[in-house]
């Protein structure tokens, strides 16, 4: 009891100030949209505020908590998608005409992420951006490791067919 009795939880403001940008970036990848990503980040940070007395302690790991809240919220999109909501946003034709600058690439990647089912998008981000192992992703999402593998494979295949592979490969070399 009394977890929320303190009016000004020590350390919360510092945590937000120092980690906000990175948390918003995670949100953008989880949703495929910068603005939605910021909303998602704020949802996670408000949840963290409510539990700050525990999270602000030595074993609190507030960022892990915020990420869990965000992943859970992002997965809710799965239900909307599975309820028959078909994404209508198509990749711009520019997806096959090269990526002139970083901003364009970012837009293309976010658009590609947006077109993925939430299941696949979340797995992709946790695996390759958050550097979670397959087992960790499986644990986080409550699915089998085999499911993580197949979702990862399908997500990578979708990015490949979106036209990102060729151009990004050129850049990476």
């Amino acid at each position, binding site marked *: 009891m009394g977890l929320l009795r303190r009016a000004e939880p020590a350390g919360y403001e510092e945590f937000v100030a120092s980690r906000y*940008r990175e948390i918003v970036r995670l949100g953008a990848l989880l949703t495929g949209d910068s603005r939605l990503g*910021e909303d998602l980040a704020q949802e996670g940070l*408000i949840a963290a*505020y*409510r539990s700050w007395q525990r999270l602000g302690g030595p074993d609190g790991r507030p960022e892990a908590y915020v990420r869990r809240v965000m992943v859970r919220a992002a997965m809710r999109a799965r239900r909307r998608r599975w309820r028959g909501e078909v994404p209508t946003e198509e990749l711009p034709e520019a997806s096959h005409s090269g990526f002139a600058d970083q901003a364009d690439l970012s837009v293309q990647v976010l658009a590609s992420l947006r077109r993925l089912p939430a299941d696949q998008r979340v797995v992709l981000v946790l695996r390759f951006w958050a550097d979670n192992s397959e087992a960790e992703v499986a644990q*986080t999402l*409550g699915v089998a490791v085999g499911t993580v593998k197949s979702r990862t494979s399908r997500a990578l295949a979708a990015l490949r067919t979106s036209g990102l592979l060729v151009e990004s490969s050129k850049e990476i070399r």
Partner: protein
Amino acid sequence: MTPNQARDLLDRAAAAVTPAETDPTTRLTALGKRSVRHRRAWGTAGVAAAVAAVVVALPIATAPRGEPAASPETTVSLGGLSVVVPNGWRTVEVETFDPCAAAPHTVYLAARWSAGGPGTRPVNCPSKDQAWLAVVREGVVGSVNPSQVVFKDAQEVMAEQPYQHYLPALWTYRALNDEIRATTAFISGDQDLLARVTWPAGPPAPPDGGLALPDRISSATTDSGPPTNGMVVATDTATLTEIRSSLAALRDPVPAGEECTLRKPGSVGISLGETTVVLGDASCPQAISTGGGRVRAPADLGQHLLDLIVASDRAASGN
């Protein structure tokens, strides 16, 4: 595309994202305070009180935490589930339930549970093989194709074995419905304890018989099964029409008392958007809909529909 390329793409995309909020701290602190006040208005104070808030109509709500149940065969409730506490068992309220740390002969009531993560669990959980039971409000995530679908208390309940390696005697039971996380019973050591848990009734069968199906289906999603367990989706009209007409043709309702348990491997779950349908094989040739209805079904219909979806998915993805 290699993992390194994917990582590079995601890094670049993330690096270009700039928050719109230039000074989030003040606003988030204010929103956080407001959120706490809102919760207090519904409960009393604090997160622990939120646990009590979901324990509606909970006879043990006034019992001291961790104390033995006041009398034999007490009934406790959480999230619509009721549990008849066995004689001599304790009832304990916790905010977060940890299956690995559960004590024997205890009924836990919790707002949420801790799935833990790799490396966070001991090799041998102390609770392994022990008899205990927990009801968790934000329980396990729903599945399109559950390990088992058990008919209980006029409700279709999905059963899973979430930790076969370190808690092999643990099964989770939750209503098979559209909620992502539903109130879940965690039962360890003695599956007869399931008889002590009561669910609210599920949706009734459609008045005109058959399975409740969406009027229009825009996708059919299932799990392709071992070895890949990959999600497969059909969106083409021909496949969707055949799936819907096959399911709509099932008109022979299962009489009360003849319901059987749908089990994997063999059973096939298909999400039709608003509704999920599960079809059994020869061991239980019945089909159910999360919208309502349980009917007899040809033993091979589930596999046939699965094959259709897989073929449609492959055709769409060019594989």
